[in-house]
């Protein structure tokens, strides 16, 4: 890895968004992910190399720290923020197809449920991890998931619920999705859920934390 890509990777891992950002304090005044990505492109480094040999490595490192209990969600989300600043420069290359995102991911809290902090954490971590996330918000009916899936036919779907009286909506939604698209992977998350419940309703997996989930997606994508 070149010095520049290594420096950029550190900016992602430590959440240094741009030169102005005061965080982290020991990098105050130094160039951040925003400027270094632009610099890397100006120097002719391939966008794919920037993504895979620098940005993703930084995200993976902070994710590993989280799993080891050496970082918290804010550390991951600040890293994701730096990642987003870098990704803005790569956007034209995604649009032209020169570089590919990890894939599409449709996410929402099921019908009747307004809880969304868990769903939002997953959304931000996935976005930072290079996924195109389509967030349908809260109180999302099965029809809406199916309709969105028609626009993004290769997408995975993630659903969240926090209530025992709304988690059954996951079964309705999973059935509706599988009926029109049997190969679509459907994942569930939320406090009252379990792998058993996921199996019972025909979903493809339950994940209690975002980092384990993103690793799973990387393995199956």
């Amino acid at each position, binding site marked *: 890895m070149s010095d520049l890509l290594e420096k950029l990777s550190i900016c992602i891992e430590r959440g240094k968004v741009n030169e102005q950002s005061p965080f982290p*304090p020991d990098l105050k005044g130094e160039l951040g992910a925003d400027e270094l990505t632009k610099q890397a492109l100006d120097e002719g480094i391939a966008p794919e190399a920037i993504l895979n040999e620098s940005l993703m490595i930084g995200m993976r490192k902070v994710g590993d720290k989280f799993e080891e*209990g*050496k*970082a*918290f*969600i*804010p*550390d991951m*989300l*600040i890293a994701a923020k730096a990642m987003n600043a870098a990704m803005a420069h790569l956007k034209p290359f995604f649009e032209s197809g020169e570089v590919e995102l990890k894939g599409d991911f449709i996410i929402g809290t099921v019908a*009747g*449920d*307004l809880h*969304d*902090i868990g769903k*939002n*954490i997953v959304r*931000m971590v996935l976005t930072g991890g290079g996924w195109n996330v389509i967030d349908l*918000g*809260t*109180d999302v009916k099965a029809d809406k998931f199916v309709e969105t899936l028609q626009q993004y036919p290769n997408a995975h779907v993630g659903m969240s619920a926090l*209530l*025992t*009286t*709304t*988690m*059954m*909506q996951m079964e309705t939604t999973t059935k509706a999705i599988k009926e029109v698209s049997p190969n679509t992977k459907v994942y569930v998350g939320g*406090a*009252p859920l379990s792998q058993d419940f996921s199996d019972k309703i025909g979903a493809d997996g339950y994940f*209690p*934390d975002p980092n384990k989930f993103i690793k799973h997606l990387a393995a199956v994508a």
Partner: protein
Amino acid sequence: MKNYSKLTIANHEELVMGISPHPVRCGNDLTIGDGKVYPEINFTLPTMLITKETFGEVRKHYTEMMSNILERSKHLNVPGLVVEFEQLPPMTETPEWGAEITELIKTKLNKFYDETNIPNALRVTVLDLRDADHPPLLRSGEPTEKTLKGFELCAQAGADILSIESVGGKEVHDQALMYGDLYGMVASLGILAHRDMSWLWNQITEIANKYDIISGGDSACGFSNTAMQLAGQGMLPSVLAALDRAASAPRSLAAFEQGAVGPSKDCAYEGPIIKAITGYPISMEGKSACCAHFSPLGNIAAATADLWSNESVQNVRLLSGNAPEAFMELLTYDCRLYNTALDEGNALMMRNMLVKSDIPHSVEALMLEPKVVIEIAQSIVKNKGGYNQTKASVQTAFTAIENALQQNVLSISNIEREWMDKLKKAIDAMADSEEEALDYLKTMYGDVFKPEAYGL
């Protein structure tokens, strides 16, 4: 509007379970805070959908849960009880459903009182639907109308105590919490949530007064309990969750400034601070609520409680019987122990044992330590305005944590210590004026909230 400029309970030794300077009389001859701790039982449906088609089954569940609970209460000869009916979303979405269940429960409680003379009361907690829109409108729109109608209909149907876990400011607090932005958390609680609480509780108190029932209290559940749960799962630093607990107190106090008189909500772990300031009784939950969620506050939560709750338990079968009945028994035995301590003049000793058993294990428990509670409460009444009070309570809580660490009363991991440094810097950087803090919220989170939803 009441203004609290001094503490009702200024001596930490007077901040004990079962005794409140201003007891609350409600329901069927029940007086809360009169020298006894009473169980507050809460229950919910098993995993099922609530629809027009299943509503008959919903009724059957509530009938069964109430029959079992009252049978157990009679068998154990409880000195009194509060039943909490916490509405599920469809029950506020269709306020008539919530009112129907309210009436069902109240009828059973009345009959129980006639038969046994055991004092009781019904708390109804209406679900706050007002964050259905993004950003939430809060003061207008159909969800707001339904939420307020829910209070009115439940008051008519027999509720004795009105409560809610309101959500104003949560859309900003959620964002700030996820990024570990303490300044954003303090400003969202101190400015936005505080303003929304004042607006909402003025109306809840009006409804309560109209029906001659009790305007109970709120809970920062969606704020600080979210932080506590995320910290418990290793997703957030516990020191951040602890400071958020202290920060939630001025927000929940706003209900009392607007006429609420307690008992505050069971999941409001900021309750002891409210009790010290207002002198009104509080409901608390600890190890008894492990059926609903885990917490680091299992024993200490009972130290100053006037009602002792189980948060919520599903109507599912256990070996002994159904879970709500089993938890009624568990709460009753806990209360018997606390009431024996009260009767024999040992409440302070009991309180101190509950406190000491949890403090070494959790920085979040430290926020409920009676001396710390009084210090935080003092810092709140010395200041004016939601933002200044919230900032002051966090500064005081931070100092209490620093002192406890220095005195080796508790210990935290290295990564939590690193966060203490970050949080100190964040506190030092907080603006002195509410106007500046509001500008910060608009700059950082302007896309997720509408100022007009807060009358700004």
